[in-house]
């Protein structure tokens, strides 16, 4: 990872990240020893149930963890295409570089377009704000870029729509505005936190295509956070499965979805209604895992084919016989 050639390929590297929340009931570990790398121009999907820490990990990348939460350990290093690597975790809360990162180099598409947009500012106002913050351009130029971007994300009549407020947009259109806002500064890393969860399948299909298209255009690395395995299968190159703050399994999308190794991943995949379990009771995660204890923290073990799985050596050797 430290060699230049490897670093050229990697856009972001998270290592041993630990995020804790100091609550009244004691210390809650939201993310525990999580490491993953995001490759340039590729999509890394992070899947897991609510509370698994997938969003908290993403928020840490932008240093958006709010009190009582804090990053208690680990490193997040961003490798810009030009310039030296930036250690995000080491930056001061008020560092100028941090403001440049947020929405500039790294930007985020939020889940809830209704709460991510300000109801009292026009859409144009909000997109231009992002441009003016990061680039030294005139207001006129910012507006021109905002119109161009709105057109790119498929909003008809962008000049007129620019002057409208979020409530004048439908859910799918609002999500496009949020995407336009995230992409307008041409980020090198795009974090998409459940960008299509609230949308209909037809709109979801359009948004997924759109993100993919824009990713190809700009060569951005994408971190895609979702709990929809169908979406993962369609957009991701690599997958990390999270459970209770830890990564359970990591590998290429084909490896993990076609041949899950960890019992938790198997359970997660089995619980999706599909043709295989048509007319039968759905397997739940508990029924798939059985009496195996997956709550004990295990370090990720490397497998020969580049995969990583949180299992004991015993279980891994059992797996390798069947592989």
């Amino acid at each position, binding site marked *: 990872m430290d060699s230049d050639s490897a670093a050229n390929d990697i856009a972001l590297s998270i290592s041993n990240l630990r995020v804790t929340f100091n609550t009244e009931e004691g210390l809650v570990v939201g993310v525990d020893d999580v490491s993953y790398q995001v490759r340039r121009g590729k999509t890394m999907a992070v899947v897991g149930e609510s509370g698994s820490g997938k969003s908290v990990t993403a928020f840490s990348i932008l240093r958006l963890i709010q009190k009582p939460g804090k990053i208690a350990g680990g490193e997040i290093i961003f490798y810009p295409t030009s310039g030296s690597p930036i250690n995000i975790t080491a930056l001061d809360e008020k560092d100028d570089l941090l403001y440049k990162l947020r929405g500039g180099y790294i930007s985020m598409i939020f889940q809830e377009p209704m709460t991510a947009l300000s109801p009292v500012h026009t859409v144009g106002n909000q997109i231009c704000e992002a441009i003016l913050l990061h680039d030294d351009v005139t207001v006129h130029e910012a507006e021109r870029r905002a119109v161009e971007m709105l057109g790119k994300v498929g909003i008809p009549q962008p000049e007129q729509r620019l002057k409208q407020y979020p409530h004048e947009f439908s859910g*799918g259109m609002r999500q496009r505005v949020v995407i336009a806002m995230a992409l307008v500064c041409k980020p090198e890393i795009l974090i998409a936190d459940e960008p299509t969860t609230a949308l209909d399948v037809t709109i979801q299909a359009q948004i997924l295509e759109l993100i993919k298209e824009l990713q190809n255009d700009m060569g951005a690395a994408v971190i895609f956070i979702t709990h929809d395995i169908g979406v993962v299968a369609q957009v991701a190159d690599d997958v990390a499965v999270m459970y209770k703050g830890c990564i359970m399994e990591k590998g290429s999308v084909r490896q993990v979805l076609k041949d899950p190794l960890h019992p938790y991943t198997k359970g997660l995949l089995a619980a999706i209604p599909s043709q295989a379990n048509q007319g039968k009771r759905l397997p739940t995660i508990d029924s798939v895992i059985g009496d195996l204890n997956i709550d004990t923290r295990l370090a990720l073990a490397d497998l020969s084919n580049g995969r990583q799985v949180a299992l004991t050596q015993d279980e891994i050797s059992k797996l390798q016989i069947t592989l």
Partner: protein
Amino acid sequence: MSDRKPLIQVNRLKKHFPVFSQGFIKRQIDTIKAVDDVTFEVMQGETLGIVGESGSGKTTCARSILRALQPTSGEVWFEAKRGRIDLATTPERELKPLRQEMQMIFQDPFSSLNPRMTVGDIVGEPLIIHKLAKGKELEDRVVEILEKVGMRSEHRMRYPHAFSGGQRQRIGIARALIMRPSLVVADEAVSALDVSVQAQVINLLEDLQEEFKLTYIFVAHDLSVVRHICDRVAVMYKGKIVEMEETEALFENPKHPYTQMLLSAIPSPDPDIKMKPRRDLVESGWLPED
């Protein structure tokens, strides 16, 4: 299935909403046809799925059937315990006893439970409203139904905030089933849940259907869930049913272009099957009301 009697027969049901102009004099300037001339029937013990995008009128349709909304026109024949009755025209006061026989499960388990009431009060409230039980009997029935949905009897002392999404949805199901309804309308009942919890709730709904001989109208936008639990599926688009078919036949061989497009947009969990949204199928210029 063919020998069963219909529990609900919907005949040319319409629900229109007037649109008024802005300003001092509110003139009616338009009508939104949320449900426009819909006809179908639901057999006893059957699960009918209603699918469609947001704004297609699926929820309005379900609510009009239950008379939670007054239909604009049309008939809703319901096989009640005391005989067949048209819900669309029944006067309000005669409707109340009928409400015991038809219940609803809501989408959002976080906003559909009153945060100031204990779980026991929430689940038992319908019995009090309909004056069906009180005191010891009320408590026994609350405990009984809570155990049926997989909760413990001591949970009735607690408040909704103490429970997870899946448990809250179970509470919502208990509240609906304590009335021993024959018809249950589930409006996006599992959409807000994680897949693992969703699987448990789907299993629960299926078990309860068998035990209480329930008929479900299952309103959802998640097509894989619909495929799993429904016997038949109605596809709604712009207030109309564009296709209605046995579930497998519909998914295997969709006939209407809108259904074809809807099904083509489902992302497959197999990375080797690439999603190919068939937008070309729908006449050009068509897009959901953006």
